[in-house]
């Protein structure tokens, strides 16, 4: 038996969320008395691969097929299942990100397995295999039982800590059997949003809503993000009005995020907005209206005008950062 973790690489690098996956797998492996095997697709330097062993991956399978440089959920799923069978994996874990979602459902079918997407904690029991996930857009949780022999999970980002558990890992190259007919959907262009910290990776998010009146007022939002090492995001009307780029839209129909700190400025806190952000560890709201629904969900709040409060708060954050 083994816990197989798909460690997607991003231009040859891993992210913190990758190590969360390994730590999560390690936690299950401890209970089941098995090992964590990582499988990665594409070119990653041995030194980078070895990072995975710091968190408990004792075997690292590197799938080298050049044709897999193009993303195809079909081909990627096939390669991962071949690796899973090779190590006799009984649990296969993915990140709950765009590619993880696209591949995991196919892996579940191939392995005749039940899938729990967006898990938020380690299984409370292995027999029956029971794991908690978010439901009703964060308004509830559900304990799901997987009854098949093989279990497939995707893990919600920032829902499990990175824990160091160094082991010596075996690195293994693997050539999967991939056929040309697995590329029926072919990427013809990849556009990267470079340079900026992405909304889903950031540990702190500074978010602006319609209360900020117009795109010309985002300078102070960006400044706060800059000071805190945060990313900026926004409510839906803000992207609908084209004040901000669409990839910044969070909420039920935008990105679902779970940062350590979410600062909402001029956002009312509609349920559909909260649905995307209520996984945040701590929420701060700044709003002129003391009855804005956001105050019911937030941990800290300032009833006040953003145009007065935010510049003062930026100064205070700056002072704090300078003193630390």
């Amino acid at each position, binding site marked *: 038996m083994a816990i197989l973790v798909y460690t*997607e690489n991003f231009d040859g690098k891993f992210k913190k969320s990758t190590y969360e996956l390994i730590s999560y797998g390690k936690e299950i492996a401890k209970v089941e008395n098995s090992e964590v095997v990582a499988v990665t697709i594409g070119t990653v330097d041995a030194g980078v691969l070895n990072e995975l062993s710091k968190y408990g991956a004792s075997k690292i399978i590197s799938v080298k097929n050049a044709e897999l440089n193009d*993303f*195809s959920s079909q081909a990627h799923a096939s390669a991962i299942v071949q690796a899973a069978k090779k190590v006799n994996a009984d649990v296969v874990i993915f990140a709950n990100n*765009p590619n993880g*979602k*696209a*591949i*995991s*459902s*196919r892996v*579940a*079918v*191939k392995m*005749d397995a*039940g*899938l729990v*997407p*967006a898990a938020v904690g380690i299984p409370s029991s292995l027999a*029956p295999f*029971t794991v908690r*996930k978010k*439901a*009703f857009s964060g308004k*509830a*949780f*559900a*304990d*799901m*039982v*997987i009854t*098949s022999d093989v279990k497939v999970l995707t893990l919600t980002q920032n829902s499990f800590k990175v824990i160091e558990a160094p082991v010596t890992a075996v690195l293994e190259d693997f050539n999967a059997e991939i056929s040309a007919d697995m590329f029926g*959907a072919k*990427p*013809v262009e*990849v*556009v*990267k*949003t470079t340079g900026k910290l*992405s909304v889903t*990776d950031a540990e702190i998010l500074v978010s602006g809503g319609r209360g900020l009146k117009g795109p010309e007022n985002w300078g102070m939002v960006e400044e706060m993000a800059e000071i805190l090492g945060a990313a900026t995001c926004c409510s839906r009307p803000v992207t609908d009005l084209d004040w901000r780029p*669409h990839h910044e839209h969070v909420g*039920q*129909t935008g990105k679902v995020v779970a940062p350590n*700190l979410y600062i909402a400025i001029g956002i009312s806190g509609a*349920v559909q907005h909260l*649905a995307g952000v*209520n996984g945040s*560890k701590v929420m*701060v709201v700044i709003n002129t209206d003391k009855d804005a629904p956001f*105050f019911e*969900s937030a*941990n*800290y709040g*300032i009833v006040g*005008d953003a145009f007065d409060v935010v510049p003062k*708060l930026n100064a*205070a*954050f700056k*002072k*704090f950062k300078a003193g630390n």
Partner: protein
Amino acid sequence: MKALICIGHVPDTTSKIRFTDNDTKFDTTDIQYIIGPYEELGLTRLLDIKDAGTDLHITAINVGKEETEATLRKALAMGADEAVRVNADATDAFFVAKQIAEVFKTGGYDFIVTGKESIDYNGGQVDGMIAEILGLPSVTGATKFEIEGNGAKMEREIDGGKEVVVASFPFVTSAGKDFAKEPRIPGMRGIMAARRKTLDVKEPVAQVLKTNVSKHFLPESKPACKLVSPDNVEELVRLLHEEAKII
């Protein structure tokens, strides 16, 4: 061209969530049901394509018991040509995917559109499962969709950017945000027309369930929001540092 669009029957986004039967079941009392927001965008986009002159026949499909028919009728009122209901509870994604794959096989469809995720159990697995069962290519979480030649050109969000993907018929895609701008609201004419459109009921094919929900929980209630005076913003910084230990 023939499209099959999966229509989720989900609680309205503003619903108060409660559970019954020892927290094993969702309490449907006073719940208003809607078409899942992503499926609504998917259907809207297909209708836009059709209205722009493409010969496209749209079948709406739902796996659900009789109570989901009102939701399917709404899809017909928006403009879908016909509907199919597979008469079974949609409790397990694998089961649902199997039913839709089965209908696809017999209907001569060119492609399938699902929503990116359902807003009840937030699955987002059905598109990939259908595709894998049928051996078809798939594009998960498409944000743009154009019919092009003998297939479609799509965009999808990836971690840290987006990719443009082309696929020939037949394929599966799931609609994400921006698949269409604003969901279509059915008009009076559409609602009248929907009554005369075909809503076919099919019995499910057998499929072993692989998951079930053992219990539901509501989130722990957060302690009341601590208010800080706008004239003392340093206090907020202190709280975030010393109390929340987050900065």
